């Protein structure tokens, strides 16, 4: 059992043109920086990316957009990216917008072996078009299918060589959900440790869900909206 790979290049080496990827993160928080950089260098194309956001022009998934590697984005909010907007308006890029909770729950469904789940989000709106609507206890719900993704690429704070992962603060977000949902799951971590170094009570993603793991380098962790208060 060897899940440890040397670096991001090795982790993504079998991701081919046309693959469906899940990428963890919320905005630029908790994104798999090293793996995205490796995908950009690899130049793989026609990707479908399931990720809550699409990065900014010069960071995150925005880097892949700039290289025109992305065919389709499945996201809940994509606003912070001029190149994204240009490709969308020109028809080069396809976008499917879905509610954020639906995105999370469709990942959970995949990770928990549920083929589809009911959520009220979007019932009675254009999001419901073409979907089954069903009433339970007087309330309408949409039937939403579990995601299928060839690869899930996530970023954790600490991980061990068996693939157990711990996330930090709000950098958790979609990462543990996507980690459970990929056919193959790649985890990059800030600190890779030996089995036994992480307290088994506080593992967020058990190693069974993780197929490849490596310690990333040079994390930039860019802040998207730097807000501070004036007093201490």
């Amino acid at each position, binding site marked *: 059992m060897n899940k440890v790979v040397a670096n991001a290049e090795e982790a993504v080496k079998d991701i081919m043109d046309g693959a469906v990827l899940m990428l963890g993160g919320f905005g630029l928080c908790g994104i798999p920086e090293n793996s995205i950089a490796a995908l950009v260098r690899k130049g793989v194309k026609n990707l479908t990316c399931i990720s809550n956001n699409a990065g900014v022009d010069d960071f995150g998934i925005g880097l892949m957009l700039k290289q025109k590697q992305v065919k389709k984005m499945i996201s809940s909010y994509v606003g912070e990216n001029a190149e994204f907007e240009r490709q969308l308006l020109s028809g080069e890029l396809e976008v499917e917008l879905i*509610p954020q909770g639906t995105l999370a729950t469709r990942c959970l469904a995949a990770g928990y072996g549920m083929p589809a789940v009911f959520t009220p989000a*979007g*019932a*009675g709106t254009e*999001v419901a078009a073409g979907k089954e609507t069903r009433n339970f206890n007087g309330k309408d719900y949409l039937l939403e299918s579990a995601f299928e993704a060839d690869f899930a690429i996530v970023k954790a*704070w600490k991980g061990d060589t068996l693939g157990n992962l711990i996330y930090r*603060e709000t950098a958790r*977000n979609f990462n543990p959900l996507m980690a459970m949902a990929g056919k193959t799951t790649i985890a990059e971590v800030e600190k890779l440790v030996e089995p036994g170094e992480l307290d088994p009570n506080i593992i967020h993603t058990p190693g069974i869900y993780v197929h490849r793991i490596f310690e990333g380098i040079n994390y930039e962790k860019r802040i998207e909206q730097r807000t501070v208060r004036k007093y201490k």
Partner: protein
Amino acid sequence: MALSKEQIAQRIAKELRDGYYVNLGIGIPTLVANYIPEGINVVLQSENGLLGMGPFPPEGEEDPDLINAGKQTITTVPGSAFFDSAMSFGMIRAGKVDLTVLGAMEVSENGDIANWKIPGKMVKGMGGAMDLVASANNIIVAMMHTNPKGESKLLPQCSLPLTGVKCVKKIVSDLAVLDVTPRGFKLLERAPGVSVEEIKNKTLGKMIVEGDVPEMEV
């Protein structure tokens, strides 16, 4: 005189009750956190995975791993908890959040809300808004009563694509406080110096006025 955005937030803050778990949307709703009344403890939920959101950090103490749903750097308060997005929307869907405050472009007299999409304009996405409005038991909308052209945003029916149906319970605008009732918008309070007549003129949806309508205390 019409309320400022700060005053709208201040008025909404009076709806807070001790022990409430509250989700505040981007914009005016965020300001509500600045006016939490003395003696009232509320816990702020941020749908990217945090209960117990605190204020912005002091300069130099920003933590890139610690942001709110508006992607702003924030802090935590003692007793906070982090969780993943499925649990976050899970607790929202299960009705555990006592109050949700969000902005709107339009609200209809039956409580439909539109706040995510303008046809012909670049659509950024609904984010968590559709989940919030479909799930919350108690939704207050913070909004301007009219758009920049002076047209009412409280309508018989929304003209924009909907975010959710029959979900808004209360509206606090720059002009008035209104409940959404089965009979339409019920006027509860007026902004100081704003007449019932003016509010009527600026409310295209059905509005109910019963008895004297007091001025808000802000």
